[in-house]
């Protein structure tokens, strides 16, 4: 494996170490915020400002980061660019990227923006706005997924299937994996959207779900941008 990956892992270890040093002195039972903050997290953790759901999401994002980082690392090694792997692998042939990927990227960016606007509207207690932008966020994400399927179709039509070469195989695998993660997010989004439709449900009841969905959306956008840059540059 590329020696830089090894050093990167070492650096990651140091960062984790520093994080833990900070964490060692905290007293989770003593975190109690302002009245507003408390209300916002009601139903999850009482008076504590940092809900377990949020901590859980960040841990999940660390796991997903590890997953994609390892895939990217495998991608580079399979290309044969890694110094440690230098075995003269020469069968790597770049694929022509379907132009629709640009449109898809725009969809995902719009999706993220819509989620962010919904999140901000939450703070202003604007229910209709939250509802509308939340729906838009999911709809754009859905369009992104449809676009990815079209990209697969176009790639297949141009002669690249999974077995044509490693570049094509990685393209299918990485986009599928990213799409599956987004699909999982859409599951939570759907549940939240349905809850929002009920008048009996207060904004505060879905606040955490919307906030976590937004963070997850931004994260998946970052993963996609990194992946898209990788695919375009190789």
């Amino acid at each position, binding site marked *: 494996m590329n020696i830089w990956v090894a050093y990167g892992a070492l650096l990651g*270890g140091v960062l984790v170490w520093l994080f833990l040093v900070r964490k*060692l002195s905290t007293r989770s*039972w003593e975190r109690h915020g302002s009245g507003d903050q408390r209300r916002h997290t009601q139903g999850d953790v009482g008076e*504590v400002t940092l809900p*377990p759901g949020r901590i859980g999401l960040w*841990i999940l994002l660390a*796991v997903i980061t590890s997953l994609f980082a390892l895939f990217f690392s495998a991608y580079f090694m399979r290309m044969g660019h890694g110094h440690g792997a230098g075995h003269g692998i020469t069968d790597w042939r770049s694929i022509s990227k379907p132009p629709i990927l640009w449109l898809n990227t725009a969809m995902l960016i719009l999706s993220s923006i819509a989620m962010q606007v919904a999140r901000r509207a939450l703070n202003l207690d604007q229910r209709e706005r939250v509802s509308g932008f939340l729906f838009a966020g999911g709809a754009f994400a859905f369009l992104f997924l449809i676009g990815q399927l079209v990209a697969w179709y176009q790639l297949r039509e141009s002669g690249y299937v*999974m077995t044509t070469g490693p570049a094509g195989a990685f393209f299918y*695998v990485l986009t599928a994996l990213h799409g599956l993660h987004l699909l999982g997010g859409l599951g939570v989004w759907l549940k939240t959207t349905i809850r929002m439709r009920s008048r009996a449900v207060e904004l505060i009841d879905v606040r955490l779900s919307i906030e976590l969905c937004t963070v997850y959306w931004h994260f998946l956008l970052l993963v996609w941008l990194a992946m898209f840059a990788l695919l375009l540059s190789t």
Partner: protein
Amino acid sequence: MAYVAIADRDHAHAGHEPQTFLTKYIWSQDHKVIAIQYTITAIAIGLVALTLSVLMRLQLGFPHSFSLIAPQNYYQFISLHGMIMVIYLLTALFLGGFGNYLIPLMCGARDMVFPYLNMVSYWVYLLAVLVLVAGFFVPGGPTGAGWTLYPPQAILSGTPGASWGIVFMLASLAIFIVAFTMGGLNYVTTVLQARCRGMTMMRLPLSVWGILMATVLGLLAFPALFVSAVMMTLDSLVGTSFFMPAISSMGQPTGYNGGSPLLFQHLFWFFGHPEVYIVALPAFGIVSDLLSTHARRHIFGYRMMVWAILAIGCLSFVVWAHHMYVSGMNPYFGFFFATTTLIIAIPTAIKVYNWVLTLWRGDIHLTVPMLFAIGFIFTFINGGLTGLFLGNVTVDVPLSATYFVVAHFHLVMGVSPILVVFGAIYHWYPKMTGRMLNDTLGRIHFWMTFIGTYAIYLPMYYLGILGVPRRYFAYSDAIKFIPPSVQTMNEWITISALFVAAVQLLFLFNLVWSFFNGKAAGGNPWRATTLEWQTPQTPPRHGNWGDKLPVVYRWAYDYSVPGAKEDFIPQNVPPDTSTPIGHGHSAKP
């Protein structure tokens, strides 16, 4: 000071005890029930792995005497034995079993923070086990590629289970990783967010520290296995060439081209080495608590022990390629990884010294858990020191793929953690069931297991130094450098292995017999300080703590404190003249 601990967020939690058999014992969201479900499932599948090892030893000790063991079966037994023991038994038992049981109780929480996810985690784990077992019944049987599943042979037709067996294995692993991730999210979040008042991180018992760090390692390392499983499944089913080079099989071209088997090895061991510590760190933590409790002495160098756990965890990510010195990788890599391997020995050695210093001048009670804990120290030192040989490139090369390696890793990450598992079960069984395990049976179990495992593995070091290669179905007379005495040694090892395997039945009998007939344990039979022994009921009821969560005033190791009336002071006892704070730890809750 106003506060509401996360664990107490649903104050009615304790009152909503599930009533039906299904919600109480099957679809339970109670961490204690889930822990026992994990434990029973892990032990059950572990017995399958034990049986496979017996079959392997029968072949090696008495070659060609058993017609049911064909060469391909032997390789299938090897592969499944290794995979089950490492992943489905040890990882699941330490984290799913002990992690689930101990974390909320030791942290003073009512349950895990995501109980529903916790329940799903167990059922997905069970699904992974079932898929694994289903692999035995598919055409061609389970994979025989070795537990490392190296390509290209793992999916080539000459290898047993290369068509369906490997796919079931990979699918089972992927499902296991999903289950582990759900469980892991719970363990980490609960430790970080659900500790009761006064339970600072630096007052946590070392068991929790070990389980926490092992979970973090698992969460970051298992994705590497997931990535390799996905890519190899595609190589096998779809015909991609991620790992498969251009190669002929049985004289026929395979259609693969350009893949990198070395890439798989890197990914596998990027998971594989942290996996060693995923198994070892909980054992380190638990054994620290066993030693301290049964030696009636505070753990020596608590802070150093915590930092050593963290250091080992971080370093475990930069030593993986010491498993690959003979793979043909860049020699500079060997230098780098040999160095990091030696560095990781430092925090490990610190822990060993601290265990020994905890015993020094302690009031040692040779209870059954203590016997297993001391047995662990011996075994871990034996296994660990031989790791220094294998961690150095020039010594490793001649010893690579010999029985020396088999002895090393079995002692260091097989027998050592299993001794801790036994010790822990003898220690916490009274809390789980309200009854003591039979002491005499326990002592017989310990001595027979301890002596028996040395009768198995010490000779293997000798075989390894002779150069006897591992993974051979039989040793033909044509291999001239292997003297006939090796066969005699193999017979001895096999008889010892059969003996040790039989002794485990005694342990199982003890578990069942004592459940009905064991002596009543009371709430705190070991006179221990940690919170799980301070629950209002034994076994603890749903919600663990009754109406009020405990408040912690001291660390977990106030044993034999000068001036105290008794030789232990529980963590939730406020300080006064008869219960002073030991070792300068703050009394602030």
